[in-house]
């Protein structure tokens, strides 16, 4: 009976636990493999499959490898039960990478599920498919994501956005553009949930492609409060980056004030005292007072590379922002709207959102508005310990940069005993940096409480904080020192009982604080020093003793009493030398030596003490002490000799030298005990790097102010100077702020070159004077180079900036560019003409006006176009989207009598490249080089309708990938599809690269041999020109100019080049054009490799000329193609 009863009791208790756990999956977890799983998986009942899968999941959770069930599990993807599906997906994601081949079996089911009417099924299928991470299926996933991005269900679109980073992680370059395109599309979604996920995708896929943001910046700002919290965090960061990249920093913000009013700042907020320590211990030589804030803002912008280079050269000037990189927060709408839409987020329930919004305000908001972030930030402190630490880390930087912000809220930083040590330490540091004269008394009261805290490490930190406060607020120094002195005495009571390092630490910190306070104003603390010295007997902690002894040496000549005490003190030290710790021994030696150096009386006593110590120390067990004493003995003996020789005369230089040596020794000694917790590197608020204080993977500083357009049309970072000058402009549509920091450099660069060139030009002018007077030698050439070319070009480009934005006709942009050029070339020419014939002038402006890109027909109205005539010409504009794209102007004309509607031009295989500006510059050059070579077309905006005889003009951005074959396009109009062919022109695969003759020749000389290709051809265009002008009574000289003009015109209208210089022969025979040389420069769009073209003319002016064309280019194939192209079009007669 009894055993039975026992058994029942046992089962009863078991049963009760069973009842408690009923309905849970506990039994599955406890014994996952008590039944055989395989048959269950093959069962036809969903519930059994489910159970099997749960068992597998339990095994996975317990760390057992069950990948051998993979094939059976994969089969079940086809199940209709959602729970089975979900469990299979969990399993699949866990093992897919391990069993890639079997995973492929599931793809068909995913494809099928993607077409399921249930959005949940579609979303899950997409999520799992993208999560499998197999390179093979990446193209399929891409298609699926593209499809889901157009899904009617918000949830599916959101999952599509989430799938993009997974695809991106596979690092398949050929998909990069398509992924970015989808990101752009999803960012444009009307549902906030999708936008949030798309923002996260953007941040991980293409954070540099800020032009995507430009298109719907306003919309994103407006939608921001409705986006779900996690998306908000990503989106806030993106919007901040965009505003800085496109408009620059805000003038009224803290970032600006720090740049400009450095000196006033150092006076104003007195934070210099705070960093007094830093000041003396860094080699930057007293430059760190106002530096803090300045440094913070600079660190936000510069990347690690720049930071390293700057600190290694200690060159503060390397990074300076100019006025143009700032915009006014009051007038700039984009800035205002960002601040307006982020300010309610400061009330968010999600602390990460609050911190991100606060970060935006910190960087962008006008200084008077920054204070609104304070309360929300402080409110964050009432959350978990972990987030408290993160928030405090950020507040710490804010508080150091602008102590006045947090000063009224010092009570919030008072410490609770339940907080972790790290939080306490941070709070102490913040308190000591925001203390003001009014708050310091209550802060000190708190500190006094903290000193009695059982956590002794924290108490020691408190003492250090007191020292910092006293340094910051010199008024309080006396009170602090008194308190600290009392503390040192109080601690004596406990010192003997040896609570180990902690109490010692407190004493050391107390002395250290006293020491640093004294250092600020030694004379007024004379008594303190004396008191400390007197307490030497009772202070036993070596580090503390060493510091007091150091003070004896340091202030041995201070005041009246200390010098008189020295004798006794040194004797005492010598007496207890043998029983001291190593640290103290070394310090005693130093001090005695130092006293001896500075002593004026009692020298012989000191010497005796010194030699006594030397004897002791030379026999010391520790070799450090022995080494030190040998060194000091040597030093001292030379000193003694000198004193002996010139006693009384006080040889100053000699003494100084010794002082210096002594101080060197001491400096090294003191630094050892100093706790230097100041880091020079700051990271963006809220970032992980700011917490760990080094650049965490994935950390990106803020973009360079006003760099957006630069990035857009050119290579991202680290461009060479010249490229920068081409693209450096910041013509923002509304505000017209322009040029950036490097502009100044480069401009000045060019200025100097300008003057050099000018002087050399005038020199040559002189030469030519001589030569023209009698020298028949044709060799010395007059250079008609446009000196100001480069800088003028900048203007030209910046004028064409708006043109990129579609506000100006490209023709006019080109004209203005050429006009500028000619204008600048005028002085040079007129200079010459003074020498030669006064009225001769090359007016390339005429050329500029006549430069007319050749028009090709895309669609003939008569044959196939149903009355639509489409012509195109290559534009010299540089695409605003990417430097890889060639701009083509397309002219539509309705030649029929009916309205034609819905005209659009797309790539023939249109699954690529659907959305326009999505493909902006990829950051990675190599990725571009390796990406697939199919020409891509950025579709133009369609023309809604075209009335009869109406014309429309569109700019087409095409990426040719150097394909010279015609590009097949499809033209849709009136719903019909017409195939058309676009013939690429290699002459527009380049863009002008302004440079001056010297650079040109230098580069040319570096591209000899196999990089140089020549060809010759005939040129006749000028003859017509000359005949025309014969009617006018022009000088003979003009023949040259006419030739130059027509040649330049021809070339510039057929290729996108930059005219560098024209060399003219100074020959007796005015009809002989031989020796005329034109130089053009350009760079290849895709690779930015320079391409130099030289054309030399031979023959008589009035006859067909023989041109020899030379191309210097690293890229052989491209160079040859370009050469052929130039030769071809030069031969072609000009039309109309």
């Amino acid at each position, binding site marked *: 009976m009894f055993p039975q009863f026992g058994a029942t009791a046992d089962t009863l208790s078991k049963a009760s636990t069973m009842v408690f756990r009923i309905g849970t999956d506990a039994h599955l977890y406890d014994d996952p493999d008590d039944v055989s799983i395989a048959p269950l998986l093959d069962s036809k009942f969903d519930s059994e499959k489910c159970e099997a899968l749960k068992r597998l999941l339990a095994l996975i959770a317990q760390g057992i490898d069950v990948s051998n069930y993979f094939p059976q599990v994969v089969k079940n993807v086809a199940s209709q039960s959602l729970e089975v599906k979900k469990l299979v997906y*969990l399993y699949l994601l866990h093992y897919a990478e391990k069993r890639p081949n079997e995973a492929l079996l599931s793809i068909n089911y995913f494809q099928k599920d993607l077409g399921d009417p249930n959005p949940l099924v579609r979303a899950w299928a997409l999520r799992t498919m993208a999560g499998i991470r197999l390179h093979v299926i990446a193209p399929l996933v891409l298609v699926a994501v593209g499809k889901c991005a157009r899904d009617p269900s918000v949830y599916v679109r959101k*999952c599509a956005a989430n799938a993009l980073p997974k695809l991106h992680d596979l690092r398949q370059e050929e998909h990069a553009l398509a992924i970015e395109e989808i990101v752009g599309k999803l960012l444009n979604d009307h549902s906030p949930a999708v936008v949030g996920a798309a923002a996260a995708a953007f941040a991980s896929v293409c954070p540099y492609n800020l032009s995507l943001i430009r298109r719907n910046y306003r919309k994103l700002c407006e939608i921001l409060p409705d986006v779900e919290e996690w998306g908000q965090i990503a989106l806030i960061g993106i919007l901040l980056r965009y505003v800085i990249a496109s408009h620059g920093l805000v003038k009224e913000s803290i970032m600006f004030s720090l740049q400009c009013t450095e000196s006033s700042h150092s006076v104003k907020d007195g934070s210099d005292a705070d960093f007094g320590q830093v000041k003396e211990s860094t080699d930057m030589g007293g430059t760190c007072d106002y530096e803090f804030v300045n440094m913070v803002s600079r660190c936000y912008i510069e990347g690690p590379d720049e930071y390293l280079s700057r600190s290694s050269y200690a060159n503060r000037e390397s990074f300076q922002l100019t006025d143009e990189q700032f915009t006014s927060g009051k007038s700039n709408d984009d800035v205002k709207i960002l601040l307006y839409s982020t300010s309610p987020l400061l009330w968010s*329930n999600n602390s990460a959102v609050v911190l991100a919004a606060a970060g935006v305000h910190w960087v962008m908001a006008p200084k008077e508005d920054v204070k609104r972030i304070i*309360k929300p930030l402080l*409110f964050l402190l009432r959350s978990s310990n972990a987030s408290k630490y993160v928030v405090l880390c950020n507040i710490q930087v804010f508080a150091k940069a602008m102590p006045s912000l947090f000063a009224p809220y010092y*009570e919030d930083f008072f410490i609770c005993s339940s907080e972790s040590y790290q939080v306490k330490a941070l709070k102490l540091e913040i308190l000591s940096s925001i203390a003001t004269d009014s708050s310091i008394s209550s802060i000190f009261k708190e500190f006094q409480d903290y000193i009695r805290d*059982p956590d002794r490490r924290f108490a020691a930190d408190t003492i250090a904080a007191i020292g910092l406060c006293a340094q910051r607020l010199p008024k309080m120094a006396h009170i602090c020192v008194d308190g600290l002195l009392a503390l040192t005495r109080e601690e004596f009571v406990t010192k003997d009982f040896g609570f180990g390092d902690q109490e010692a630490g407190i004493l050391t910190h107390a002395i250290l604080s006293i020491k640093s306070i004294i250092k600020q104003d030694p004379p007024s603390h004379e008594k303190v020093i004396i008191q400390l010295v007197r307490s030497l007997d009772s202070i036993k902690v070596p580090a503390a003793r060493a510091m007091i002894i150091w003070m004896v040496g340091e202030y041995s000549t201070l005041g009246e009493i200390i010098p008189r005490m020295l004798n006794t003190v040194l004797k005492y030290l010598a007496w207890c030398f043998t029983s001291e710790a190593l640290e103290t021994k070394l310090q005693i030696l130093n001090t005695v030596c130092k006293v001896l150096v500075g002593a004026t009386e009692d020298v012989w006593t000191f010497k005796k003490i010194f030699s006594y110590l030397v004897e002791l120390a030379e026999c010391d067990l520790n070799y450090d002490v022995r080494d030190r004493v040998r060194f000091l003995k040597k030093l001292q003996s030379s000193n003694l000799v000198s004193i002996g020789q010139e006693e009384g005369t006080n040889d100053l230089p000699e003494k100084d030298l010794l002082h210096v040596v002594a101080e060197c020794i001491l400096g090294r000694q003191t630094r050892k005990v100093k706790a230097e917790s100041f880091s020079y590197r700051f990271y963006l608020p809220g970032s992980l790097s700011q917490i760990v204080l080094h650049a965490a993977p994935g950390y990106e500083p803020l973009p360079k102010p006003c760099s957006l357009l630069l990035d857009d049309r050119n290579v991202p970072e680290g461009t060479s100077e010249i490229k920068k000058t081409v693209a450096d402009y910041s013509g923002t549509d509304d505000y017209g702020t322009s040029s950036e920091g490097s502009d100044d450099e480069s401009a000045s660069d060019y200025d100097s070159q300008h003057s050099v060139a000018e002087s050399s030009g005038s020199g040559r002018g002189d030469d030519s004077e001589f030569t023209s007077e009698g020298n028949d030698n044709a060799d010395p050439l007059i250079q008609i180079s446009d000196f100001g070319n480069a800088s003028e070009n900048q203007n030209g480009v910046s004028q064409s900036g708006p043109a990129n934005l579609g506000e100006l006709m490209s023709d006019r942009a080109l004209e203005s560019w050429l006009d500028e050029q000619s204008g600048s070339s005028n002085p040079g020419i007129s200079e010459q003409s003074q020498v030669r014939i006064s009225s001769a002038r090359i007016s390339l402006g005429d050329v500029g006006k006549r430069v007319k890109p050749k028009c090709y027909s895309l669609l003939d109205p008569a044959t196939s176009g149903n009355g639509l005539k489409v012509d195109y010409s290559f534009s010299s504009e540089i695409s605003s989207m990417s430097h890889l794209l060639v701009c083509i102007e397309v002219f539509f004309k309705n030649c029929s009598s009916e309205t034609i509607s819905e005209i659009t031009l797309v790539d023939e295989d249109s699954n690529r490249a659907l959305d326009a500006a999505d493909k902006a510059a990829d950051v990675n050059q190599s990725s571009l080089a390796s990406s697939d070579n199919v020409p891509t077309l950025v579709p133009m905006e369609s023309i809604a309708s075209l009335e009869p005889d109406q014309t429309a003009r569109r700019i087409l951005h095409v990426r040719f990938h150097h394909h010279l074959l015609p590009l097949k396009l499809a033209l849709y109009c009136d719903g019909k599809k017409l195939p058309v062919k676009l013939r690429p022109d290699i002459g527009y695969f380049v863009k002008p690269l302004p440079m001056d003759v010297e650079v040109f020749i230098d580069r040319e000389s570096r591209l000899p041999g196999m990089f140089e290709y020549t060809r010759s051809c005939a040129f006749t265009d000028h003859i017509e020109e000359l005949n025309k002008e014969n009617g006018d009574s022009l000088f003979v000289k003009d023949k040259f100019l006419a030739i130059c003009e027509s040649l330049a015109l021809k070339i510039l209208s057929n290729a996108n080049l930059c005219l560098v210089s024209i060399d003219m022969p100074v020959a007796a025979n005015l009809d002989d054009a031989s020796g005329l040389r034109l130089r053009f420069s350009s760079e290849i769009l895709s690779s930015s490799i320079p391409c130099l073209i030289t054309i030399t003319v031979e023959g008589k002016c009035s006859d067909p000329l023989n041109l020899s064309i030379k191309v210097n280019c690293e890229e052989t194939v491209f160079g040859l193609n370009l050469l052929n192209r130039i030769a071809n079009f030069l031969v072609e007669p000009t039309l109309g």
Partner: protein
Amino acid sequence: MPPLMGIEFLCRVSDVLSDYLGGLNEDVIKDNFVIVYELLDEMIDNGFPLTTEPNILREMIAPPNIVSKVLSVVTGNSSNVSDTLPGATGSCIPWRAADPKYANNEVYVDLVEEMDAVINRDGALVKCEVYGEVRVNSHLSGLPDLTLSFANPSILDDVRFHPCVRFRPWESHQILSFVPPDGEFKLMSYRVKKLKSTPIYVKPQLSSDAGKCRVNVLVGIRNDHGKTIDSITLQFQLPPCILSADLTSNTGTVNILGNKTCSWSIGRIPKDKTPSLSGTLVLESELERLHVFPTFRVGFKIMGVALSGLQIDKLDLKTAPSRLYKGFRALTRAGEFEVRS
């Protein structure tokens, strides 16, 4: 990823899990591992939070409640994964489950406050502030649009809102206008700073001499709110230099735990006497006097009063259903209430 985002997300996961499982510990997670897996899979996708709104998660994955447990036992069908996508995922108010129906329309608003205070060694009140939450439990049909206003919103020092709260009405009129999630949620949290007094006082006295330390702590009510103060507790950590302690009290019980934590639970303060804790601590040998002092952490609870003085003015429902039951409550607890000795 910003570190706070990670921390915040983990907090959210722990909230959701403990909400689902009624607690969060190893056993509970093991017992419900499938649900945990499913939830995590729904909450995070490729390292980025996907669906964190508890209401939607509830619709996607049914929590293991008694009904479903019984049902699963009876029917043998244990599916807890919903077949359909919750409608709210697509709506612009993702926190609200689509169209719940209730026979009785009820809204309960609770003010739950925590008082943080620091009293320094001199007995002076260094810091006293209240951290409060407005917790709403709503069972309303359809798509209710509520407005809640306070009688004295100006005392609020700082606020944080649930995403459902519209920012602009608050900015202009300090009115909370929102479409509530279904069930219980935290509508807003607020802070009221610089309060002048605490409901109770704690007066510790420690005097040490000759290796012994005498402790005497008095606790009493400072000013009467008319409400009883419940579950008063006092906790402190004995300094490491104390060898043994002998503490007794005239009311309540005193426990000294293994990690030298001493806790004194008083409960309600009796009318006839002032609770006091007294006794001696023996210091480590050779130590004459105590040089570090413990901090006393006080706990209490007052029902029916919000110590910050915040008062709810009115709660209105725009699209008024026939009958709406509104309930208001208040509660104040001790938060970081510290008394230094």
